[in-house]
Protein backbone atom coordinates (compact mmCIF):
# COMPACT_ATOMS: atom_id res chain seq x y z
CA UNK A 1 0.00 0.00 0.00
CA UNK A 2 2.68 2.48 0.99
CA UNK A 3 5.36 1.16 -1.31
CA UNK A 4 5.35 4.39 -3.28
CA UNK A 5 5.72 6.52 -0.13
CA UNK A 6 9.51 6.57 -0.16
CA UNK A 7 11.57 9.56 0.98
CA UNK A 8 12.45 10.03 -2.66
CA UNK A 9 8.84 10.29 -3.79
CA UNK A 10 7.88 12.35 -0.74
CA UNK A 11 10.52 14.96 -1.62
CA UNK A 12 9.32 15.04 -5.22
CA UNK A 13 5.69 15.49 -4.16
CA UNK A 14 6.55 18.22 -1.64
CA UNK A 15 8.68 20.03 -4.21
CA UNK A 16 5.95 19.90 -6.83
CA UNK A 17 3.39 21.11 -4.29
CA UNK A 18 5.60 24.01 -3.22
CA UNK A 19 6.20 24.97 -6.84
CA UNK A 20 2.46 24.84 -7.51
CA UNK A 21 1.71 27.10 -4.54
CA UNK A 22 4.54 29.57 -5.12
CA UNK A 23 2.49 32.10 -7.15
CA UNK A 24 -0.03 32.31 -4.29
CA UNK A 25 2.75 33.09 -1.87
CA UNK A 26 4.08 35.67 -4.31
CA UNK A 27 0.75 37.40 -4.70
CA UNK A 28 0.09 37.47 -0.94
CA UNK A 29 3.52 38.83 -0.04
CA UNK A 30 4.00 40.82 -3.24
CA UNK A 31 7.35 39.09 -3.71
CA UNK A 32 7.28 38.84 -7.48
CA UNK A 33 11.04 38.63 -7.65
CA UNK A 34 10.76 35.15 -6.14
CA UNK A 35 8.28 34.08 -8.80
CA UNK A 36 10.47 35.44 -11.55
CA UNK A 37 13.48 33.64 -10.11
CA UNK A 38 11.57 30.39 -9.98
CA UNK A 39 10.28 30.82 -13.50
CA UNK A 40 13.90 30.83 -14.59
CA UNK A 41 14.62 27.81 -12.40
CA UNK A 42 11.73 25.88 -13.98
CA UNK A 43 12.99 26.70 -17.47
CA UNK A 44 16.57 25.68 -16.74
CA UNK A 45 15.26 22.56 -15.03
CA UNK A 46 13.66 21.63 -18.36
CA UNK A 47 17.03 22.02 -20.04
CA UNK A 48 18.63 19.83 -17.34
CA UNK A 49 15.89 17.19 -17.68
CA UNK A 50 16.44 17.07 -21.44
CA UNK A 51 20.20 16.82 -21.01
CA UNK A 52 19.72 14.00 -18.54
CA UNK A 53 17.79 11.98 -21.12
CA UNK A 54 20.90 11.68 -23.26
CA UNK A 55 23.57 11.96 -20.54
CA UNK A 56 22.09 10.07 -17.60
CA UNK A 57 20.17 7.42 -19.48
CA UNK A 58 22.02 7.35 -22.77
CA UNK A 59 25.58 7.93 -21.53
CA UNK A 60 26.05 10.69 -24.11
CA UNK A 61 27.80 13.49 -22.25
CA UNK A 62 26.91 16.55 -24.31
CA UNK A 63 29.04 19.52 -23.37
CA UNK A 64 27.15 21.79 -25.70
CA UNK A 65 23.62 21.54 -24.49
CA UNK A 66 23.25 25.27 -23.86
CA UNK A 67 23.44 25.75 -27.64
CA UNK A 68 19.84 24.54 -27.89
CA UNK A 69 18.74 27.12 -25.32
CA UNK A 70 20.41 29.74 -27.49
CA UNK A 71 18.95 28.43 -30.73
CA UNK A 72 15.42 28.23 -29.31
CA UNK A 73 15.82 31.72 -27.85
CA UNK A 74 17.29 33.28 -30.97
CA UNK A 75 14.59 31.87 -33.24
CA UNK A 76 11.99 33.59 -31.04
CA UNK A 77 14.07 36.79 -30.83
CA UNK A 78 14.87 37.06 -34.53
CA UNK A 79 11.28 36.38 -35.59
CA UNK A 80 10.03 38.96 -33.09
CA UNK A 81 12.42 41.53 -34.46
CA UNK A 82 11.28 40.77 -37.99
CA UNK A 83 7.70 41.41 -36.96
CA UNK A 84 6.49 37.84 -36.64
CA UNK A 85 5.15 37.78 -33.11
CA UNK A 86 2.87 34.78 -33.23
CA UNK A 87 3.93 31.98 -30.92
CA UNK A 88 2.22 29.56 -33.27
CA UNK A 89 4.99 30.35 -35.74
CA UNK A 90 7.86 31.12 -33.35
CA UNK A 91 7.70 28.08 -31.12
CA UNK A 92 7.32 25.29 -33.69
CA UNK A 93 10.14 26.89 -35.65
CA UNK A 94 12.31 27.12 -32.51
CA UNK A 95 11.77 23.41 -31.87
CA UNK A 96 12.36 22.49 -35.51
CA UNK A 97 15.63 24.41 -35.78
CA UNK A 98 16.85 22.94 -32.48
CA UNK A 99 15.97 19.47 -33.71
CA UNK A 100 17.76 19.98 -37.01
CA UNK A 101 20.83 21.26 -35.24
CA UNK A 102 20.76 18.23 -32.94
CA UNK A 103 20.46 15.97 -35.98
CA UNK A 104 23.61 17.48 -37.49
CA UNK A 105 25.61 17.46 -34.27
CA UNK A 106 24.46 13.96 -33.37
CA UNK A 107 25.13 12.50 -36.80
CA UNK A 108 28.77 13.54 -36.45
CA UNK A 109 29.46 13.29 -32.74
CA UNK A 110 27.78 9.91 -32.19
CA UNK A 111 30.37 8.30 -34.42
CA UNK A 112 32.87 8.99 -31.65
CA UNK A 113 32.81 8.28 -27.96
CA UNK A 114 34.21 9.40 -24.65
CA UNK A 115 36.22 12.57 -24.64
CA UNK A 116 35.91 13.05 -28.41
CA UNK A 117 32.16 13.08 -28.16
CA UNK A 118 32.40 15.74 -25.48
CA UNK A 119 34.79 17.83 -27.58
CA UNK A 120 32.65 17.69 -30.72
CA UNK A 121 29.47 18.72 -28.91
CA UNK A 122 31.44 21.55 -27.30
CA UNK A 123 32.87 22.62 -30.65
CA UNK A 124 29.44 22.85 -32.26
CA UNK A 125 28.10 24.87 -29.35
CA UNK A 126 31.04 27.25 -29.60
CA UNK A 127 30.35 27.62 -33.29
CA UNK A 128 26.76 28.69 -32.63
CA UNK A 129 27.99 31.01 -29.89
CA UNK A 130 30.30 32.84 -32.29
CA UNK A 131 27.69 32.90 -35.04
CA UNK A 132 25.39 34.70 -32.60
CA UNK A 133 28.13 37.20 -31.79
CA UNK A 134 28.48 37.82 -35.51
CA UNK A 135 24.80 38.60 -36.01
CA UNK A 136 25.16 42.39 -36.13
CA UNK A 137 21.59 42.92 -37.20
CA UNK A 138 20.45 41.07 -34.07
CA UNK A 139 22.62 42.80 -31.53
CA UNK A 140 25.83 40.80 -31.92
CA UNK A 141 27.68 40.58 -28.65
CA UNK A 142 25.20 42.84 -26.85
CA UNK A 143 22.22 40.64 -27.50
CA UNK A 144 18.76 41.38 -28.71
CA UNK A 145 15.86 42.82 -26.74
CA UNK A 146 12.48 41.25 -27.41
CA UNK A 147 9.81 43.92 -27.09
CA UNK A 148 6.84 41.65 -27.04
CA UNK A 149 6.41 38.11 -25.77
CA UNK A 150 5.12 35.46 -28.17
CA UNK A 151 1.40 35.87 -28.77
CA UNK A 152 -0.97 32.93 -28.60
CA UNK A 153 -4.20 34.75 -29.40
CA UNK A 154 -7.17 33.23 -27.68
CA UNK A 155 -5.10 30.56 -25.93
CA UNK A 156 -2.82 32.10 -23.34
CA UNK A 157 -1.47 35.55 -22.56
CA UNK A 158 2.22 35.16 -21.81
CA UNK A 159 2.58 38.73 -20.56
CA UNK A 160 0.67 37.61 -17.48
CA UNK A 161 3.52 36.59 -15.21
CA UNK A 162 1.51 34.13 -13.16
CA UNK A 163 0.12 32.42 -16.23
CA UNK A 164 3.61 32.25 -17.71
CA UNK A 165 4.89 30.68 -14.50
CA UNK A 166 2.20 28.03 -14.61
CA UNK A 167 2.87 27.35 -18.27
CA UNK A 168 6.52 26.67 -17.46
CA UNK A 169 5.50 24.57 -14.47
CA UNK A 170 3.11 22.46 -16.56
CA UNK A 171 5.63 22.04 -19.38
CA UNK A 172 8.32 20.94 -16.94
CA UNK A 173 6.03 18.32 -15.40
CA UNK A 174 5.00 17.16 -18.86
CA UNK A 175 8.64 16.88 -19.85
CA UNK A 176 9.57 14.85 -16.77
CA UNK A 177 6.62 12.56 -17.44
CA UNK A 178 7.61 12.21 -21.09
CA UNK A 179 11.20 11.32 -20.17
CA UNK A 180 9.91 8.82 -17.63
CA UNK A 181 7.71 7.18 -20.27
CA UNK A 182 10.52 7.12 -22.80
CA UNK A 183 13.03 5.66 -20.38
CA UNK A 184 10.77 2.73 -19.52
CA UNK A 185 9.71 2.05 -23.11
CA UNK A 186 11.36 -0.24 -25.62
CA UNK A 187 13.18 2.76 -26.99
CA UNK A 188 14.43 3.67 -23.52
CA UNK A 189 15.75 0.16 -22.92
CA UNK A 190 17.75 0.40 -26.14
CA UNK A 191 19.20 3.74 -25.09
CA UNK A 192 20.18 2.45 -21.66
CA UNK A 193 21.50 -0.77 -23.10
CA UNK A 194 23.73 1.22 -25.45
CA UNK A 195 25.06 3.19 -22.48
CA UNK A 196 25.73 0.02 -20.55
CA UNK A 197 27.30 -2.05 -23.35
CA UNK A 198 27.04 -0.79 -26.90
CA UNK A 199 29.03 -3.66 -28.33
CA UNK A 200 26.69 -6.24 -26.91
CA UNK A 201 23.69 -4.28 -28.14
CA UNK A 202 24.97 -4.59 -31.69
CA UNK A 203 25.78 -8.25 -31.17
CA UNK A 204 22.19 -9.03 -30.20
CA UNK A 205 20.93 -7.17 -33.23
CA UNK A 206 20.36 -3.49 -32.48
CA UNK A 207 21.49 -0.78 -34.88
CA UNK A 208 22.23 1.44 -31.88
CA UNK A 209 23.33 4.51 -33.85
CA UNK A 210 19.89 5.42 -35.14
CA UNK A 211 18.35 5.05 -31.68
CA UNK A 212 21.00 7.19 -30.05
CA UNK A 213 20.63 9.80 -32.78
CA UNK A 214 16.86 9.89 -32.31
CA UNK A 215 17.33 10.30 -28.58
CA UNK A 216 19.82 13.09 -29.18
CA UNK A 217 17.30 14.93 -31.38
CA UNK A 218 14.47 14.50 -28.86
CA UNK A 219 16.67 16.04 -26.16
CA UNK A 220 17.64 18.88 -28.50
CA UNK A 221 14.01 19.70 -29.26
CA UNK A 222 13.12 19.67 -25.57
CA UNK A 223 15.96 22.01 -24.78
CA UNK A 224 14.99 24.25 -27.69
CA UNK A 225 11.61 24.68 -26.02
CA UNK A 226 13.38 25.74 -22.84
CA UNK A 227 15.24 28.31 -24.95
CA UNK A 228 12.02 29.72 -26.42
CA UNK A 229 10.62 30.01 -22.91
CA UNK A 230 13.74 31.65 -21.55
CA UNK A 231 13.67 34.27 -24.31
CA UNK A 232 10.07 35.05 -23.40
CA UNK A 233 10.89 35.15 -19.72
CA UNK A 234 13.78 37.58 -19.93
CA UNK A 235 12.54 39.41 -23.07
CA UNK A 236 16.13 39.23 -24.17
CA UNK A 237 18.52 36.89 -25.94
CA UNK A 238 22.29 37.12 -26.09
CA UNK A 239 25.23 34.87 -26.93
CA UNK A 240 25.91 34.61 -23.19
CA UNK A 241 22.98 32.22 -22.77
CA UNK A 242 24.88 29.59 -24.71
CA UNK A 243 28.36 30.23 -23.37
CA UNK A 244 30.14 26.95 -22.70
CA UNK A 245 29.96 27.55 -18.95
CA UNK A 246 26.17 27.44 -19.27
CA UNK A 247 26.49 23.95 -20.76
CA UNK A 248 28.68 23.10 -17.79
CA UNK A 249 26.02 24.39 -15.40
CA UNK A 250 23.44 22.09 -16.98
CA UNK A 251 25.72 19.10 -16.49
CA UNK A 252 26.25 20.11 -12.86
CA UNK A 253 22.49 20.36 -12.31
CA UNK A 254 21.92 16.88 -13.68
CA UNK A 255 24.81 15.36 -11.72
CA UNK A 256 23.91 17.18 -8.50
CA UNK A 257 20.25 16.19 -8.67
CA UNK A 258 20.87 12.65 -9.82
CA UNK A 259 21.08 11.16 -13.28
CA UNK A 260 19.30 7.96 -12.38
CA UNK A 261 15.77 9.30 -12.48
CA UNK A 262 13.70 11.56 -14.69
CA UNK A 263 12.98 13.92 -11.78
CA UNK A 264 16.52 14.12 -10.38
CA UNK A 265 17.66 17.03 -12.58
CA UNK A 266 14.70 19.11 -11.35
CA UNK A 267 16.01 18.76 -7.81
CA UNK A 268 19.47 19.51 -9.11
CA UNK A 269 18.39 22.64 -10.96
CA UNK A 270 16.56 24.00 -7.93
CA UNK A 271 19.45 23.19 -5.58
CA UNK A 272 22.10 24.57 -7.91
CA UNK A 273 20.35 27.80 -8.83
CA UNK A 274 19.23 28.52 -5.25
CA UNK A 275 22.75 27.88 -3.98
CA UNK A 276 24.16 30.10 -6.66
CA UNK A 277 21.66 32.82 -5.82
CA UNK A 278 22.15 32.49 -2.06
CA UNK A 279 25.93 32.34 -2.21
CA UNK A 280 26.13 35.31 -4.54
CA UNK A 281 24.64 37.43 -1.77
CA UNK A 282 27.36 36.37 0.62
CA UNK A 283 30.41 36.22 -1.61
CA UNK A 284 31.27 36.90 -5.20
CA UNK A 285 33.35 33.75 -5.28
CA UNK A 286 30.42 31.34 -5.37
CA UNK A 287 32.48 28.69 -7.12
CA UNK A 288 34.74 28.32 -4.07
CA UNK A 289 31.77 26.71 -2.35
CA UNK A 290 30.03 25.13 -5.36
CA UNK A 291 33.21 23.47 -6.61
CA UNK A 292 34.02 21.44 -3.50
CA UNK A 293 30.33 20.64 -3.08
CA UNK A 294 30.25 19.06 -6.51
CA UNK A 295 33.44 17.20 -5.66
CA UNK A 296 31.75 15.73 -2.60
CA UNK A 297 28.76 14.65 -4.68
CA UNK A 298 31.04 13.03 -7.26
CA UNK A 299 33.02 11.21 -4.56
CA UNK A 300 30.40 10.23 -2.03
CA UNK A 301 26.97 10.64 -3.57
CA UNK A 302 26.98 9.07 -6.99
CA UNK A 303 23.41 9.41 -8.08
CA UNK A 304 23.21 12.89 -6.59
CA UNK A 305 20.56 14.12 -4.20
CA UNK A 306 18.02 11.78 -5.74
CA UNK A 307 20.36 8.84 -5.21
CA UNK A 308 20.88 9.83 -1.57
CA UNK A 309 17.14 9.88 -1.01
CA UNK A 310 16.80 6.45 -2.58
CA UNK A 311 19.49 5.17 -0.24
CA UNK A 312 17.78 6.64 2.83
CA UNK A 313 14.82 4.43 2.03
CA UNK A 314 16.85 1.27 1.67
CA UNK A 315 18.49 2.08 5.01
Amino acid sequence: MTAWLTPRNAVAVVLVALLALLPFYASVTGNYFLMSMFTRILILAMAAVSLNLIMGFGGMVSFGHAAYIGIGGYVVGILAKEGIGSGFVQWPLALAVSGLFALGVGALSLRTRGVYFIMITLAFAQMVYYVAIGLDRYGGDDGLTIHKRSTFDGVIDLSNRTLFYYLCFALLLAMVYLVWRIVNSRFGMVIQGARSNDRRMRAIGFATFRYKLTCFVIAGVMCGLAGALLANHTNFVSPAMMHWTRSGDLIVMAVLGGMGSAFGPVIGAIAFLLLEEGLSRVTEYTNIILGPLLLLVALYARGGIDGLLARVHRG
Partner: protein
Amino acid sequence: MADALLKIDGLTKRFGGVIASDNIVLDVNRGELHAIIGPNGAGKTTLISQLTGELAPNLGSIHFDGADITALPVYRRSALGLARSFQITSLFLDFTALDNVALAVQAHAGHSFRFWRDTRTEEQLRAPARAGLDRVGLSNRADVVVANLSHGEHRQLEIAMALATKPRMLLLDEPMAGMGPEESARMVETLRELKRDLTILLIEHDMEAVFALADRISVLVYGRVIATGAPAAIRANPEVRTAYLGEQEAAGG
Protein backbone atom coordinates in the same frame (compact mmCIF):
# COMPACT_ATOMS: atom_id res chain seq x y z
CA MET B 1 28.20 -30.51 -49.14
CA ALA B 2 25.00 -28.62 -49.85
CA ASP B 3 24.25 -28.82 -46.18
CA ALA B 4 26.81 -26.33 -44.94
CA LEU B 5 25.05 -23.63 -42.94
CA LEU B 6 28.23 -21.63 -42.47
CA LYS B 7 30.85 -21.65 -45.18
CA ILE B 8 34.22 -19.99 -44.58
CA ASP B 9 36.45 -19.73 -47.61
CA GLY B 10 39.99 -18.43 -47.71
CA LEU B 11 39.52 -16.17 -44.71
CA THR B 12 42.65 -14.16 -44.00
CA LYS B 13 43.22 -11.48 -41.37
CA ARG B 14 46.51 -9.69 -40.79
CA PHE B 15 47.43 -7.40 -37.92
CA GLY B 16 50.54 -5.68 -39.23
CA GLY B 17 53.00 -8.51 -39.73
CA VAL B 18 51.02 -11.05 -37.72
CA ILE B 19 48.69 -13.34 -39.63
CA ALA B 20 45.88 -14.12 -37.22
CA SER B 21 43.76 -15.99 -39.75
CA ASP B 22 45.67 -17.73 -42.51
CA ASN B 23 43.51 -18.81 -45.45
CA ILE B 24 40.94 -20.53 -43.27
CA VAL B 25 38.58 -22.90 -45.08
CA LEU B 26 35.87 -24.37 -42.90
CA ASP B 27 32.30 -25.63 -43.28
CA VAL B 28 29.89 -25.97 -40.42
CA ASN B 29 27.08 -28.31 -41.38
CA ARG B 30 23.49 -27.79 -40.47
CA GLY B 31 22.73 -29.37 -37.12
CA GLU B 32 26.27 -30.21 -36.13
CA LEU B 33 28.27 -29.04 -33.17
CA HIS B 34 31.59 -28.07 -34.60
CA ALA B 35 34.35 -27.33 -32.12
CA ILE B 36 37.47 -25.31 -32.76
CA ILE B 37 40.42 -25.99 -30.55
CA GLY B 38 43.89 -24.62 -30.58
CA PRO B 39 46.59 -23.28 -28.29
CA ASN B 40 46.44 -19.75 -26.89
CA GLY B 41 47.06 -17.17 -29.58
CA ALA B 42 45.94 -19.49 -32.37
CA GLY B 43 43.46 -16.86 -33.56
CA LYS B 44 40.23 -18.43 -32.33
CA THR B 45 38.63 -15.24 -31.06
CA THR B 46 39.82 -13.35 -34.14
CA LEU B 47 37.98 -15.92 -36.24
CA ILE B 48 34.76 -15.53 -34.24
CA SER B 49 34.98 -11.75 -34.46
CA GLN B 50 35.15 -11.97 -38.24
CA LEU B 51 32.18 -14.31 -38.30
CA THR B 52 30.10 -11.87 -36.23
CA GLY B 53 31.29 -8.86 -38.21
CA GLU B 54 33.25 -7.03 -35.53
CA LEU B 55 36.43 -7.49 -37.55
CA ALA B 56 36.66 -7.26 -41.31
CA PRO B 57 38.84 -9.90 -43.00
CA ASN B 58 41.55 -8.85 -45.45
CA LEU B 59 40.68 -11.69 -47.80
CA GLY B 60 38.16 -14.45 -48.17
CA SER B 61 34.44 -14.83 -47.79
CA ILE B 62 31.84 -15.97 -45.29
CA HIS B 63 28.52 -17.43 -46.41
CA PHE B 64 25.66 -18.04 -44.06
CA ASP B 65 22.81 -20.16 -45.37
CA GLY B 66 23.94 -19.47 -48.90
CA ALA B 67 24.13 -15.67 -48.54
CA ASP B 68 27.40 -13.78 -48.63
CA ILE B 69 27.65 -12.01 -45.26
CA THR B 70 31.32 -11.03 -45.48
CA ALA B 71 30.55 -7.30 -45.53
CA LEU B 72 27.37 -7.19 -43.40
CA PRO B 73 27.42 -5.15 -40.18
CA VAL B 74 27.10 -6.93 -36.84
CA TYR B 75 23.41 -6.26 -36.22
CA ARG B 76 22.39 -7.49 -39.67
CA ARG B 77 24.11 -10.82 -39.10
CA SER B 78 22.29 -11.12 -35.82
CA ALA B 79 19.03 -10.54 -37.69
CA LEU B 80 19.89 -13.42 -40.03
CA GLY B 81 20.17 -15.75 -37.06
CA LEU B 82 23.84 -15.76 -36.16
CA ALA B 83 24.32 -15.25 -32.43
CA ARG B 84 27.44 -15.15 -30.33
CA SER B 85 28.40 -15.41 -26.71
CA PHE B 86 31.46 -13.58 -25.52
CA GLN B 87 34.61 -15.08 -24.05
CA ILE B 88 34.84 -12.24 -21.58
CA THR B 89 31.40 -11.81 -20.12
CA SER B 90 29.67 -8.97 -21.89
CA LEU B 91 26.36 -8.20 -20.27
CA PHE B 92 24.31 -5.22 -19.17
CA LEU B 93 25.61 -5.23 -15.63
CA ASP B 94 23.23 -2.60 -14.26
CA PHE B 95 20.11 -4.41 -15.56
CA THR B 96 18.42 -7.42 -13.98
CA ALA B 97 18.95 -10.84 -15.52
CA LEU B 98 15.42 -10.78 -16.91
CA ASP B 99 15.92 -7.32 -18.42
CA ASN B 100 19.08 -8.57 -20.13
CA VAL B 101 17.31 -11.43 -21.83
CA ALA B 102 14.19 -9.35 -22.56
CA LEU B 103 16.38 -6.85 -24.38
CA ALA B 104 17.75 -9.64 -26.54
CA VAL B 105 14.19 -10.77 -27.28
CA GLN B 106 13.24 -7.18 -28.09
CA ALA B 107 16.07 -6.96 -30.62
CA HIS B 108 14.22 -9.44 -32.80
CA ALA B 109 10.65 -8.35 -32.13
CA GLY B 110 10.32 -5.53 -34.64
CA HIS B 111 11.73 -2.03 -34.42
CA SER B 112 12.20 -0.31 -31.07
CA PHE B 113 10.96 3.15 -31.96
CA ARG B 114 8.24 2.68 -29.38
CA PHE B 115 8.36 5.44 -26.85
CA TRP B 116 5.35 5.16 -24.62
CA ARG B 117 4.42 1.72 -23.34
CA ASP B 118 6.23 0.37 -20.27
CA THR B 119 8.23 -2.45 -21.80
CA ARG B 120 8.41 -4.33 -18.51
CA THR B 121 4.69 -5.02 -18.85
CA GLU B 122 4.97 -6.49 -22.34
CA GLU B 123 4.31 -10.18 -21.98
CA GLN B 124 5.43 -10.86 -25.55
CA LEU B 125 8.95 -9.87 -24.43
CA ARG B 126 8.85 -11.01 -20.83
CA ALA B 127 7.49 -14.51 -21.40
CA PRO B 128 10.18 -15.61 -23.89
CA ALA B 129 12.79 -13.98 -21.65
CA ARG B 130 11.62 -15.98 -18.66
CA ALA B 131 11.61 -19.12 -20.79
CA GLY B 132 15.18 -18.35 -21.83
CA LEU B 133 16.31 -17.99 -18.22
CA ASP B 134 14.53 -21.21 -17.40
CA ARG B 135 16.36 -23.01 -20.17
CA VAL B 136 19.76 -22.22 -18.64
CA GLY B 137 18.58 -22.74 -15.06
CA LEU B 138 18.48 -19.12 -13.95
CA SER B 139 14.75 -18.60 -13.43
CA ASN B 140 15.15 -18.10 -9.70
CA ARG B 141 17.64 -15.28 -10.35
CA ALA B 142 15.49 -13.33 -12.80
CA ASP B 143 15.18 -10.14 -10.76
CA VAL B 144 18.76 -9.98 -9.53
CA VAL B 145 20.89 -7.16 -10.92
CA VAL B 146 23.46 -8.85 -13.13
CA ALA B 147 26.46 -7.27 -11.40
CA ASN B 148 25.48 -9.34 -8.34
CA LEU B 149 25.44 -12.70 -10.13
CA SER B 150 28.29 -15.22 -9.93
CA HIS B 151 30.72 -15.85 -12.76
CA GLY B 152 29.07 -19.15 -13.64
CA GLU B 153 25.68 -17.48 -13.71
CA HIS B 154 27.07 -14.81 -16.03
CA ARG B 155 28.17 -17.52 -18.46
CA GLN B 156 24.73 -19.12 -18.36
CA LEU B 157 23.13 -15.74 -18.91
CA GLU B 158 25.39 -15.18 -21.92
CA ILE B 159 23.89 -18.30 -23.48
CA ALA B 160 20.35 -17.30 -22.58
CA MET B 161 20.84 -13.97 -24.31
CA ALA B 162 22.30 -15.51 -27.43
CA LEU B 163 19.34 -17.92 -27.51
CA ALA B 164 16.82 -15.13 -27.03
CA THR B 165 17.76 -13.69 -30.42
CA LYS B 166 16.19 -16.86 -31.92
CA PRO B 167 19.37 -17.84 -33.72
CA ARG B 168 19.82 -20.60 -36.23
CA MET B 169 23.45 -20.81 -35.30
CA LEU B 170 25.35 -20.14 -32.11
CA LEU B 171 28.96 -18.98 -31.96
CA LEU B 172 30.18 -19.78 -28.48
CA ASP B 173 33.50 -18.29 -27.45
CA GLU B 174 34.83 -20.30 -24.52
CA PRO B 175 31.56 -20.62 -22.64
CA MET B 176 33.31 -22.54 -19.83
CA ALA B 177 36.19 -20.13 -19.29
CA GLY B 178 36.92 -19.70 -15.61
CA MET B 179 34.29 -22.17 -14.45
CA GLY B 180 34.59 -24.67 -11.65
CA PRO B 181 33.97 -28.38 -12.41
CA GLU B 182 30.40 -28.28 -11.18
CA GLU B 183 29.53 -25.24 -13.26
CA SER B 184 31.26 -26.75 -16.28
CA ALA B 185 29.23 -29.91 -15.95
CA ARG B 186 26.06 -27.85 -15.93
CA MET B 187 27.17 -25.96 -19.01
CA VAL B 188 27.90 -29.22 -20.84
CA GLU B 189 24.35 -30.31 -20.04
CA THR B 190 22.97 -27.01 -21.34
CA LEU B 191 24.96 -27.32 -24.56
CA ARG B 192 23.88 -30.91 -25.04
CA GLU B 193 20.27 -29.68 -24.88
CA LEU B 194 20.92 -26.87 -27.35
CA LYS B 195 22.64 -29.18 -29.78
CA ARG B 196 19.32 -30.79 -30.59
CA ASP B 197 17.86 -27.64 -32.14
CA LEU B 198 20.83 -25.55 -33.18
CA THR B 199 23.96 -25.53 -35.23
CA ILE B 200 26.82 -24.60 -32.94
CA LEU B 201 30.37 -23.44 -33.47
CA LEU B 202 32.13 -23.93 -30.17
CA ILE B 203 35.49 -22.56 -29.18
CA GLU B 204 36.62 -24.14 -25.97
CA HIS B 205 39.72 -24.98 -23.97
CA ASP B 206 38.06 -27.65 -21.88
CA MET B 207 39.06 -30.77 -23.87
CA GLU B 208 36.83 -33.07 -21.91
CA ALA B 209 33.82 -30.96 -22.84
CA VAL B 210 34.88 -30.64 -26.47
CA PHE B 211 35.36 -34.35 -27.01
CA ALA B 212 32.11 -35.12 -25.20
CA LEU B 213 30.04 -32.70 -27.27
CA ALA B 214 31.55 -32.19 -30.70
CA ASP B 215 30.46 -33.93 -33.89
CA ARG B 216 33.50 -32.58 -35.66
CA ILE B 217 36.57 -30.73 -34.48
CA SER B 218 38.88 -28.34 -36.29
CA VAL B 219 42.32 -27.60 -34.94
CA LEU B 220 43.62 -24.08 -35.35
CA VAL B 221 47.34 -23.38 -34.95
CA TYR B 222 48.92 -20.02 -35.76
CA GLY B 223 45.84 -18.99 -37.69
CA ARG B 224 45.77 -22.12 -39.83
CA VAL B 225 43.37 -25.03 -39.75
CA ILE B 226 45.72 -28.02 -39.55
CA ALA B 227 43.04 -30.68 -39.27
CA THR B 228 39.30 -31.20 -39.32
CA GLY B 229 37.53 -34.40 -38.45
CA ALA B 230 35.57 -36.53 -36.03
CA PRO B 231 36.82 -36.49 -32.40
CA ALA B 232 38.42 -39.92 -32.68
CA ALA B 233 40.29 -38.94 -35.84
CA ILE B 234 41.49 -35.72 -34.27
CA ARG B 235 42.67 -37.53 -31.17
CA ALA B 236 44.67 -39.90 -33.35
CA ASN B 237 46.09 -37.27 -35.72
CA PRO B 238 49.86 -37.09 -35.16
CA GLU B 239 50.18 -33.49 -36.32
CA VAL B 240 47.51 -32.42 -33.85
CA ARG B 241 49.16 -34.37 -31.06
CA THR B 242 52.45 -32.59 -31.49
CA ALA B 243 50.95 -29.18 -32.07
CA TYR B 244 48.42 -29.17 -29.33
CA LEU B 245 47.23 -32.22 -27.50
CA GLY B 246 50.72 -33.37 -26.63
CA GLU B 247 51.44 -30.01 -25.18
CA GLN B 248 48.31 -30.26 -23.02
CA GLU B 249 49.05 -33.79 -21.91
CA ALA B 250 52.57 -32.82 -21.03
CA ALA B 251 51.30 -29.85 -19.05
CA GLY B 252 48.64 -31.96 -17.38
CA GLY B 253 51.28 -34.47 -16.38
